[in-house]
C-alpha cells in the first residue's frame, strides 16, 4: 500500500495503521536487567551492522588513491624486507619447495588480518563515542563492523598473493578449499582479544597506547617472516599457545599445500585458546556494555 502512495508524508503517516503486533510489544527496562533476547536483538540490528560496516569501508576508500595504494604497498614492502632478512641474510628454510616470498606472504595475510582487526576494533567504541551516547543499539555492532574493514583489506591482500603465485608459477594444492575455515579461525582469534580490549579501552583510555606495541612485538614473535617448522620440536607445543601461530600454520598448510605440515597438537591448542579468548572477550564485553554510555 505505501509504496505507490504519493500523498504527502503527513497524510501517509496518519493513514498508516499501527500494527497489532507492534502494539503488544512490551519492553521492560530495569537495573542490571540482563537482556534475555540479546542475540535476537543483535539480529534485529543486522541492517545497522551492514550500514556501519559499509560506512567504515566507504570512508576508508573515499580518497581512493591513498586507500587502495596503502593496502597494496604495505604488505608488499613488508614481504620484500622479510624475504631479504629472513630468507636471504638469515638463510632460513622455506616449507617444502615454496618460494620464500610466497611463504612470507601466506603468513603475512592472516597476520595483517589479525593485527588490523585488533587495532581497528580496539579503538572503534571510542571513535563512535557520539553515537553511543545518543542512540541505543547492541554495542557489539561497532567493533564487529570495524572488523569488516580489515576483511576488505584482507581480500585485496589475497588477490596480491594469487598474483604472486602466478608470477612464481606456484600451484596451490587442493588444501585451498579449507581456506574459508582458516579465515574464520583468524577472525575468531582476533575478535576475542579485540572485544576485551575495546571494552577496557572505554574505561581506561591509555590501553590503546599499548596496542601498537603489542602488534609490533607480535609480528616478530609470530611465525610471519619464517616458518614455524624451524622451532625446535620440544617447544613447538608451547609456541602454539599463541593462537596466531595456529592461524598462520593453517594458512600455510592450506595455501602452500603438501610442503607444509600441520602440527596437530599445537594447532588444536591454538584453536582452544582462540575459542576461549573469544568466549571471555564476549562475556567481558557484554558485562561492560551496559555502562558504555556513561563512560564514553
Amino acid at each position, binding site marked *: 500500500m*505505501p*509504496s505507490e502512495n504519493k500523498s*504527502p*508524508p*503527513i497524510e501517509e*503517516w*496518519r493513514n*498508516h495503521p*499501527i500494527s497489532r503486533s*507492534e*502494539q*503488544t*510489544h*512490551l*519492553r*521492560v*527496562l*530495569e*537495573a*542490571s*536487567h540482563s537482556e534475555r533476547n540479546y542475540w535476537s536483538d543483535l539480529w534485529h540490528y543486522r*541492517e*545497522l551492522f551492514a*550500514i*556501519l560496516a559499509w*560506512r567504515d569501508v*566507504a*570512508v576508508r576508500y*573515499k580518497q581512493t588513491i591513498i586507500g587502495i595504494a596503502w593496502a597494496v604497498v604495505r604488505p608488499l614492502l613488508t614481504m620484500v624486507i622479510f624475504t631479504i632478512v629472513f630468507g636471504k641474510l638469515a638463510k632460513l628454510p622455506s616449507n617444502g619447495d615454496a618460494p620464500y616470498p610466497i611463504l612470507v606472504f601466506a603468513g603475512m595475510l592472516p597476520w595483517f588480518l589479525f593485527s588490523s582487526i585488533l587495532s581497528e576494533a580496539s579503538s572503534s567504541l571510542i571513535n563512535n563515542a*557520539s*553515537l*553511543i*551516547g*545518543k*542512540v*541505543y*543499539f547492541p554495542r557489539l555492532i561497532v567493533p564487529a563492523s570495524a572488523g569488516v574493514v580489515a576483511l576488505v583489506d584482507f581480500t585485496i591482500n589475497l588477490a596480491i598473493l594469487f598474483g604472486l603465485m602466478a608470477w612464481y608459477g606456484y600451484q596451490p594444492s587442493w588444501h585451498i578449499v579449507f581456506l574459508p575455515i582458516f579465515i574464520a579461525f583468524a577472525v575468531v582469534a582476533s575478535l576475542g582479544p579485540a572485544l576485551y580490549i575495546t571494552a577496557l579501552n572505554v*574505561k*581506561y583510555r591509555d590501553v590503546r597506547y599499548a596496542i601498537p606495541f603489542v602488534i609490533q612485538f607480535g609480528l616478530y614473535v609470530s611465525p610471519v617472516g619464517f616458518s614455524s617448522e624451524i622451532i625446535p620440536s620440544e617447544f613447538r607445543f608451547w609456541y602454539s599457545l599463541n593462537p596466531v601461530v595456529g592461524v598462520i600454520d593453517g594458512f600455510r598448510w592450506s595455501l602452500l599445500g603438501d610442503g607444509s605440515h600441520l602440527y596437530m597438537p599445537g594447532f588444536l591448542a591454538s584453536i582452544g585458546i582462540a575459542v576461549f579468548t573469544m568466549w571471555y572477550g564476549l562475556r567481558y564485553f557484554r*558485562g*561492560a556494555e*551496559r*555502562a558504555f*554510555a*556513561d*563512560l564514553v
Partner: protein
Amino acid sequence: MTDIVIRADRLGKRYVIGHRTERERYTALRDVLTRSTTRLLRTALDVARGRQLIDGDEREEFWALSEVSFELKRGDVVGVVGRNGAGKSTLLKVLSRITEPTRGRVEIRGRLASLLEVGTGFHPELSGRENIYLNGAILGMRRAEIDRKFDEIVAFAEVEKFLDTPVKRYSSGMYVRLAFAVAAHLEPEILVVDEVLAVGDAEFQKKCLGKMKDVAGQGRTVIFVSHNLAAVKALCNRGLLLAGGRVVRDDSVDAVVRQYVNTSDAAYSISFAANSARPAISAIDVDSEALAERHLIVDIHFASPKPLHTAVGGIVLRADTGEAVWGSNSRFHPSRNPVKGVAYGVLRCEARRLPIRPGRYSLSAWLGDWHEDYDARIDVLNFTVGADDAHSLLPPASAVGHLDWPAEWGAAFETREASIA
C-alpha cells in the same frame, strides 16, 4: 488492552563523581605521599574489580534521577521541563535504553525511537544520499522504509541538487535540514525528542514544529524536552516538571510551565561549551542591577573557529505566559560599531526603560550574519524585570497584556443642574 504506553516506577539513576579535597595551605610531602598511596591502592583495587575509575580523593554519589514515577497514555504529548541538571536528559537516556536505570523499572509498550541530537552519526565525507541511509539506520529505520520515504526526505530537506555532494561541503543550514528531515520521517509509536528545535533558521524551526504537531496529532506518544517554553506550550498537552532528579509536578502543560517559570531561580548569566565547527554563542550576561530600573543590558559573547565577516545578534523577551513580548536584532536596530573580521567578541544590546510590565521574563539570544543563522539559545535566562509590587493593582497580564504604557486619563464633566425632585 491497556492504554498506558509508558509506566515508570520509582526510577533512579546514580552517577559517581569524584572530588579533590581542599588543598592544604602548604604542601607537605607526607600528605602527598599518603594521598598518592591511597589513590594508587584504590586504583589498583578498582582495576582488579573491573570498576570504573573515579578521579579525585572523595567520591560522591549523585542521583540524577530518583523516585521518578509517571504513566503516559497513548497519544499523550508530554513536555518535560526543568533547569539544567534537573535530570531531563538522563530521563530521556534511560527511556531510550542508552543507559540503564540504577533502580526502579520502566515498561514501554510499542516501538520507541529517540531523537536526542540532530544528525547523529552523520559522516562528513559521505554524500547526502549516503548519510540519509546511514542516519536512518541509526535511528532504527529499515532499509525498505528509507527507500520508500527517500524522495519525501529529500523534498523536506530541500537538498535535491546536493544529494551526491559530501555533507562536509553543505552549509550548516542544509546540514541541519537534511538531518531533521530524516528524523521527521521516523514512524515510531513513541517518539522521544531532546532540545533539537534549537537549531536551524526560524522558518525551518516552524516547519519542524509543524511536523512534530502532526506526529502528536496522530495518536502517537511524544516526550519532548525543551527549554523553549513557547514550543512546549504549543506542542504538548501534559507537562512534567523535574527538579533535582525528581518529578515536582505532573499536570497540564500550562500549570507546569507556570510553576517552572515562577519557581526557577533567577539566572543572569550562562555560558555554553565551545563549538569548534561553527560560530556560536559562548555566553550571555544580563546586567542584573539595571533590571530593577527596567533597563535591559545584554552581552552576547560569541566565538567562531574563523574570523567572521560580520556578526549580528538578536534577543527576545518572553513572558511567563509563554508569549514573546519584545525583541530586537542588530539587523533592524543596526549596531553603532559593527563587527568586522573578528573571531571572538561581545555584542551588547541596551534597551532603556522598557515599557513592559514588571514580572518574570525569560531571554533568548540569537547569533547570525546578514544571511545565515549561526546559533540560537532559547529561554536560557530567566529573571524579574522591574519591581515586582509596583503594579499589584493592575489586572493580570493574561487579561490586559504585557505592555506597561502610561495612559492619561481625564474626564469631562457636564455640570447640569440636576433636578432632583
